[in-house]
């Protein structure tokens, strides 16, 4: 089975040079995305079969590439299989979407060669079983995604986004490189050897911090998130969906693989670090998202929020595992992984919808959209499903994973450590706040873009997108609903992963009556998505039919409520900024140093009044700014070395040699 997987990955890699040839042909992008769709679907199905295999085999293989005495080790176990499913489900959906969307690409030569290579890189990361292959695949993934980010290179903003992304990606890889260096100092680079070794507590703790930095910078943990909202929206929309929905999950995989699998039993304080990174990430991410007007940037910031939720789940799992409560750890871990899967589904869906809107209208600014539900009804419906799912409303899938997460948080009084007893409920409060903000954020996104009246001509003349894009969005929406009403199937599929990583599993779900979900025991709490769905569907149908039957059937068209103005302009509607103004007033001054400057002309002047809002990113100002200044200062000082005389260079070499020899001899 692992050979099928590796062959499919190799075919994806081989497609990259083919992409150069195909990009010059009129039907080339269709053929390339079609091939990607077939290959990713194959990978996805193979991984699902492996995950559902009752024997849960661990397959290994070694290829004679890479370091000469090491080779490239690959391993397919439950964890890799789960993440392969996430990656390739997202990849298949993106390829299906791109069958239609990719036709509008102006320079296909800048996207087509990198796209299959990027998909292959992500798959190899989760298959790698030695540090060298892992890092090479990780860097390959970063570089190909960077190439996709700067594919529309004429835009100066994209180039800047690519630059920041490249810097942060290098930083992350450096942290991971150091982490693996520390881990592999005794046993070598093979993961199996690292797993069997017993690093000291201090070394393991160092590795955890480095891995949190390395994977956190790729996943977008605050304060390492600065690149994410720049880079993700800059790429073509199907790639944005992949970067947000899938690549951040590869980073989560890296964290889980190293911290839960390769390292020995966790120390008690690791979980605190992870929780303190995850909780604020969730709240801050969604607060940023609420302040944005750019539809793709809202989605990128919302990714940061979801990454915060996932890391909170992983932190909880670490906390419970360190205290020996592995049945709760299994609950938190499963919730985190389920959220990984769910977020990949609905974030891809939402980015595809944003891509369809962008392709149809040419704008990403919400203040120029509006009324799209009439012009793009099918896209609007799929987007509605995505918005409801990401807002964690039942009966969709987002609710299930967040609900399971809160069930684990509610069990925190069982933790013996007082520090965790105090921190975990506080983090729970942050998550609840984030969930409420997320709902507000997506009400805003959907309401401003799709409802109301068009705010610009391009929005008024929008058209429905093509059938491939719609097929991709509707299949993802269907999966969102399926995972929402039958979560037991998905939880049971995750059992082998949880068994391997935290040593215990959640109770078996599929045998329960009425397809309920029971996190611990039926006496405590249970949830039945199917019931909620049937109830909501029945109520909705009954209400609709009652209205249609009982209300007057005379059709009457009249002007909408017009605030007393007879000739209402679309500009007097709620705007994106005005919708989020209350939240900005409450939290903005604290988090963004937001200031509102109202300028009223004197009574005699005909000038219009102006209201300006200033917001600063405090993390950017407080953390990145000083670092950039320090680096600039240091480089100017070091630059002197560029202009020395020949003899000074000789002397430098000589002194360096002497110092090194002294180090050897002393």
């Amino acid at each position, binding site marked *: 089975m692992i050979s099928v997987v590796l062959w499919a990955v190799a075919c994806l890699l081989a497609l990259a040079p083919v992409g150069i040839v195909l990009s010059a042909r009129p039907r080339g992008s269709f053929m390339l995305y079609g091939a990607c769709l077939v290959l990713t679907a194959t990978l996805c199905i193979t991984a699902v079969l492996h995950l559902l295999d009752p024997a849960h085999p661990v397959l290994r293989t070694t290829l004679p590439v890479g370091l000469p005495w090491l080779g490239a080790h690959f391993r397919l176990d439950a964890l890799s299989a789960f993440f392969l499913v996430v990656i390739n489900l997202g990849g298949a959906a993106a390829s299906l979407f791109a069958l239609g969307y990719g036709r509008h690409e102006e320079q296909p030569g800048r996207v087509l060669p990198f796209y299959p290579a990027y998909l292959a890189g992500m798959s190899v990361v989760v298959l790698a079983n030695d540090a060298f292959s892992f890092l090479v695949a990780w860097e390959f993934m970063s570089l190909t995604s960077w190439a996709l980010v700067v594919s529309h290179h004429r835009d100066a903003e994209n180039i800047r986004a690519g630059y920041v992304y490249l810097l942060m990606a290098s930083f992350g890889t450096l942290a991971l490189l150091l982490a693996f260096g520390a881990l592999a100092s005794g046993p070598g680079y093979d993961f199996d050897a690292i797993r069997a070794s017993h690093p000291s507590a201090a070394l393991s703790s160092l590795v955890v911090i480095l891995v949190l930095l390395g994977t956190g910078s790729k996943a977008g943990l605050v304060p390492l998130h600065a690149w994410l909202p720049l880079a993700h929206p800059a790429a073509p929309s199907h790639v944005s969906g992949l970067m947000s929905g899938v690549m951040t999950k590869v980073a989560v995989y890296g964290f889980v693989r190293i911290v839960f699998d390769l390292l020995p039993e966790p120390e008690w304080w690791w979980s605190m670090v992870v929780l303190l990174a995850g909780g604020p990430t969730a709240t801050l991410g969604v607060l940023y998202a609420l302040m944005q007007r750019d539809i793709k940037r809202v989605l990128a910031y919302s990714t940061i929020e979801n990454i915060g939720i996932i890391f909170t789940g992983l932190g909880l799992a670490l906390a419970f595992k360190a205290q020996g409560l592995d049945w709760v750890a299994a609950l938190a871990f499963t919730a985190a992984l389920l959220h990984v899967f769910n977020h990949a589904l609905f974030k891809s869906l939402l980015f595809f919808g944003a891509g369809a809107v962008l392709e149809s209208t040419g704008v990403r600014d919400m203040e120029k959209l509006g009324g799209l539900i009439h012009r793009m009804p099918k896209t609007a419906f799929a987007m509605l499903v995505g918005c409801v799912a990401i807002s964690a409303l039942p009966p969709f899938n987002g609710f299930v994973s967040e609900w399971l997460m809160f069930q684990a948080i509610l069990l925190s009084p069982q933790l013996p450590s007082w520090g965790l007893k105090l921190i975990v409920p506080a983090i729970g409060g942050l998550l609840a706040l984030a969930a409420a903000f997320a709902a507000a954020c997506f009400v805003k996104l959907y309401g401003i873009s799709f409802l109301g009246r068009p705010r610009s001509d391009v929005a008024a003349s929008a058209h429905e997108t093509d059938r491939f894009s719609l097929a991709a969005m509707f299949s993802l929406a269907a999966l969102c609903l399926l995972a929402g009403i039958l979560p037991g199937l998905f939880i049971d599929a995750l059992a082998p992963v949880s068994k391997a990583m935290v040593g215990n599993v959640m109770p078996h779900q599929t045998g329960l009556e009425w397809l309920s979900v029971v996190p611990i025991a039926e006496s405590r709490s249970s949830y039945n998505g199917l019931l909620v769905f049937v109830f909501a569907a029945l109520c909705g149908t009954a209400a609709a039919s009652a209205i249609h039957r009982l209300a007057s059937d005379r059709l009457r068209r009249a002007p909408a409520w017009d605030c007393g103005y007879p000739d209402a302009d679309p500009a007097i509607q709620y705007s994106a900024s005005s919708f989020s103004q209350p939240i900005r007033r409450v939290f903005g001054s604290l988090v963004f140093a937001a200031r509102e400057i109202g300028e009223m002309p004197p009574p005699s002047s005909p000038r219009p009044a102006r209201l300006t809002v200033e917001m600063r990113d405090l993390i950017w100002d407080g953390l990145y700014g000083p670092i950039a200044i320090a680096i600039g200062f240091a480089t100017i000082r070091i630059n002197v070395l560029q202009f020395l*005389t020949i003899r000074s260079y000789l002397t430098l070499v000589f002194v360096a040699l002497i110092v090194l020899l002294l180090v*050897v*001899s002393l």
Partner: protein
Amino acid sequence: MSSLQFDIAHLLAGSLVLASFMMLYQDRLYSLLNVYALHASVLALSVAWQAYVQAAPHLYVTALIALVFKAIIIPVALHRIIKRLGIHREIENVIGIGLTMMAGIGLVALSMVVMLRVTPGADALAREDLAFALSVVLLGLLIMVTRRNAVSQVVGFMSLENGLVLAATGAKGMPLVVEISVAFSVLIAFIVIGIFLFRIRERFDSVDVQALDRFRGERR
């Protein structure tokens, strides 16, 4: 290996270090070249002795290359260059002779400590040889660092290369190909540097590299 053979090898390698020390304090170019010729001859002797001791006839070829190229052709050529450049009367102010000698002694001590510490497994001849070779290399570098004249820097570089050859022949089983390639690379470096010397001379009327620095105007 008899103790006499070992002692003679030791003596020759030690003489090479001694010749390096002699080069350190020569402040006239002609005498520097003469000492360099002596340096290369001692190297040739030492390599020939190694060839005899190790019963490795190809090392005789190396010794011959050292004798012909380094002890005869290169010094003669440099003599002529110096004469054509008209700098044979120049006196080079070496940074205080005492200080340089002290530094040289320190370097020899350092290379002894390093080599004896990192090669406990090798046989005695190779160890001594490597220690002396490292001293010669470091002294060559020191000559390059302390000199201002481009010709003396070239000489320092070639004495450094002699140290490399000594190290290569001291270790058993070094193929001739390596030595020939090293010798030829030095020859080419010599030619290139010689051509550059004339170009520098044409442009600046001096082969003092400080003139170059002044011209660049970048002495920060």
